[in-house]
């Protein structure tokens, strides 16, 4: 027996390279204050606070949230699952509410990496210091290792990566919160500087700062508020070692096995049997366009071998879900918050509050999270209808 859980409040700062006008505490406060206002509650109504912060070294501050949210005298915990930090923190909050331990939970993800001057050097420290850290392994080269394998195994081309990136950048032009607003063609993207073969600059996410906060509430205290219901959620881990996944018979390095298993479970909870038709919006945690392509089969959009064909299909077939109406992480990637931003965007779409980028008549939306070397995957289904 678990309580129904809905998202009733959302607050987001704009996402950009840096917010030099705000301290870290002020950055968090801006998002939290907006989320509480959106939910029409004050801090006294909150039973637990959960913060999501990925590597401290990105901000150069340990426990960056400490000066912002601890004064209110609540149970508190902090989550770090790399790029999935924001979604994992949201899941923890949802579990508090579902279990009856809290009626309302406040969750906040904050990224302060605008204070960092050598972020790829910091990202190198997330890799294994014994066998791997000596090599130029970073978020970019990690993604590139998988992109090149996807090209070899499934036949993706550089143009496919650019087509996906072009759509994400095009969508971001309608999102006032987006960091990058690039009016670029497929050719512009293919001609942008090569960072690590096969990834070009405009196929990669930017370094973004910003905070996202949400208020989650149990069904019996939602009242008449505008709400996006959590219809299904699932998360799963995988072996960290990318080299261990290369020769696996099922779920190789370029098949997102744990995302697929998470989606299967979350879809079942939400009653989704045909995700191509029953989902209106999908917000992906894909910081690189090549990483986005790997999600298509995992989310039930196509067979793995049809991935390259689906790149074109999702551009042409209007009956398919709309991918990344926000522009996705290629337009803004505040690492600690980004998994939560995906869920927040879906909740805004379900609540009809997404402004110029609103997709018409959103009944159901799916948000993903991926962290580390994709050893963490999360899938969250949000809907307008309350779960039973």
């Amino acid at each position, binding site marked *: 027996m678990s309580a129904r859980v809905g998202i009733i409040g959302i607050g987001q700062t704009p996402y950009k390279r840096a917010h*030099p*006008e705000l301290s870290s505490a002020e950055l968090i406060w801006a998002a939290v204050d907006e989320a509480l206002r959106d939910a029409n509650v004050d801090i006294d109504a909150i039973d637990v606070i959960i913060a999501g912060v990925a590597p401290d*070294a990105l901000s*150069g501050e340990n426990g960056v949230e400490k000066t912002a949210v601890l004064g209110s005298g609540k149970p508190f915990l902090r989550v770090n699952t790399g790029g999935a930090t924001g979604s994992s923190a949201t899941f923890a909050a949802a579990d508090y509410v579902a279990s009856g331990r809290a009626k309302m939970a406040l969750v906040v993800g904050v990224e302060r990496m605008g*204070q960092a*001057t*050598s972020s*790829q*050097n910091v990202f*190198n420290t997330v890799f294994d*210091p*014994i*066998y*791997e850290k*000596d*090599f*130029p*392994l*970073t978020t*970019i*080269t990690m993604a*590139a*290792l*998988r*992109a*090149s*394998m996807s*090209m*070899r195994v499934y036949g993706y081309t550089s143009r496919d990566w650019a087509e996906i990136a072009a759509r994400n950048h095009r969508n971001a032009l309608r999102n006032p919160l987006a960091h990058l607003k690039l009016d670029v063609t497929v050719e512009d993207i293919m001609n942008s*500087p*090569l*960072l*690590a*073969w*096969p*990834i070009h600059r405009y196929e990669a996410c930017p370094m973004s700062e910003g905070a996202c906060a949400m208020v989650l509430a149990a069904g019996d205290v939602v009242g008449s508020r505008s709400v996006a219901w959590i219809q299904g959620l699932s998360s799963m881990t995988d*072996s*960290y*070692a*990318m*080299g*261990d996944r*290369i*020769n696996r018979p099922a779920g190789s*390095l370029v098949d997102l096995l744990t995302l697929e298993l998470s989606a299967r479970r979350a879809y079942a909870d939400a009653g989704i049997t045909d995700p191509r038709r029953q989902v209106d919006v999908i917000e992906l945690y894909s910081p690189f366009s090549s990483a986005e392509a790997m999600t298509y089969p995992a989310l039930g959009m196509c067979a793995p071998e049809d991935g390259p064909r689906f790149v074109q299909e999702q551009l042409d077939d209007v009956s398919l879900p709309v991918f990344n109406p926000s522009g996705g992480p290629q337009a803004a990637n505040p690492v600690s918050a980004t998994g939560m931003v995906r869920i927040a965007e879906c909740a805004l779409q379900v609540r009809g509050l997404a402004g110029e980028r609103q997709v018409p008549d959103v009944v159901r939306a799916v948000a993903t999270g991926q962290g580390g070397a994709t050893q963490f995957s999360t899938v969250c289904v949000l809907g307008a209808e309350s779960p039973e």
Partner: protein
Amino acid sequence: MTELITIPGRWEFDYTYFAGEAASRFFGELKDNRRIMGVCCPSCKRVLVPARSFCDVCFQRTEDWVEVGPEGVVETFTILTATFAGMPKPPVVIAYVTFDGADTALLNVVTGLDLSNISDAADRLQARPRVRACFVDEPQGRITDFMFTLF
């Protein structure tokens, strides 16, 4: 309008990483015998390279040590082409290689490749070429004691 203040900061910490039992033996084999060793999981029977004390899928301690390589095949790669603070000067090729006799792939640098044309180099690496572990003159007991060389 208040003038916004910024405060300079720097994190500079030194660490000593403890490699542990399995990696210490693996590195010792590199240094003393110039050979690549894997361990076998008693449950799934995979030969895990580089060596580790247990199989994190089966939750079983690994037992038998087996020599693999020194040749193997390039599974996937990237060529770092841009300059990033703290990273080596581009171009640099890194690749996951499955050594002959191993079930998992290991990351290292690839040498012996003409990088004057990145696209041509990528084409060559996409063909899953065979490589050999080539040792440095004075191994230190580190993963950098060898690199992959095309032949």
